[in-house]
């Protein structure tokens, strides 16, 4: 996602929850399902470093950060789509991860865009 979009997203106020309602609010209108996804591949350098880390096992920090960033981007796209539909909240958010090809993974976030009051 370009920088401008990322900045734009930060100004959007969107309530998010993985429960069926936003706690403390009531749903006024349902606007349908929204999705946000991104496909990420790893840097070859990180791959080699991870290979060395595999000797002792444990956390692969480079990958943890990579997927964290990717998931944040998927959420940003989710927020953008909901915003364009005129929603002010997303409920019942779910995450899905799938390995596309060796070294690349798709991260997806989906939920229901709603208007809450």
């Amino acid at each position: 996602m370009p920088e401008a979009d990322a900045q734009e997203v930060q100004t959007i106020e969107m309530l998010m929850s993985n429960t069926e309602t936003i706690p403390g609010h009531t749903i006024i209108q349902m606007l349908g399902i929204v999705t946000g996804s991104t496909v990420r591949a790893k840097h070859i350098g990180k791959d080699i470093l991870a290979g060395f880390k595999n000797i002792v096992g444990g956390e692969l920090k480079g990958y943890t950060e990579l997927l964290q960033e990717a998931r944040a981007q998927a959420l940003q796209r989710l927020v953008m789509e909901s915003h364009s539909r005129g929603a002010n909240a997303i409920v019942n958010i779910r995450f899905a991860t799938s390995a596309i090809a060796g070294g690349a993974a798709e991260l997806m976030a989906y939920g229901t865009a709603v208007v809450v009051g």
Partner: protein
Amino acid sequence: MARDELDILFSLAWPLLFTVVPLLFSWIFGNIYQRKKQEELEVRVESFGTDNLTTLKSPPTQVSASGLLTANIIMSVSWWQKLVGGIKTIFGGQVQTWDGILAWARKEAMQRLREQARAGGFDNVINVRLETSEIQSSKGRNTAVEILAYGTGIKT
């Protein structure tokens, strides 16, 4: 002849250097490293005190604010653990090496979620879900698992 025996020893030493030695290295240092990290996690869990995560779908109390929280970790097994696990898959039964790694990863992911909730000023996290997915490197050699823990943080 002593010379021939030396030659045989050398020809055996090379394959050993690239197979047994790294595995031994992996076994010794992997054990030390993982034990140290697991002890650090224990300390973090204990010093944190209360458990603010629940799998309840709705908040038990009045809520003033809420927000989505996610925490993840990618964990891999060491060469040694991978070998032992691989041998285990021939005979079946419990694969203890993977078992321990997954339990550890889940514990770490949940602890991160707890810490994130506290850092964000949330009192509780409701509807906590745990997801596991396999991560592969480009050549498919290094397999690892990702544990994702997510939930809705609530302020009472």
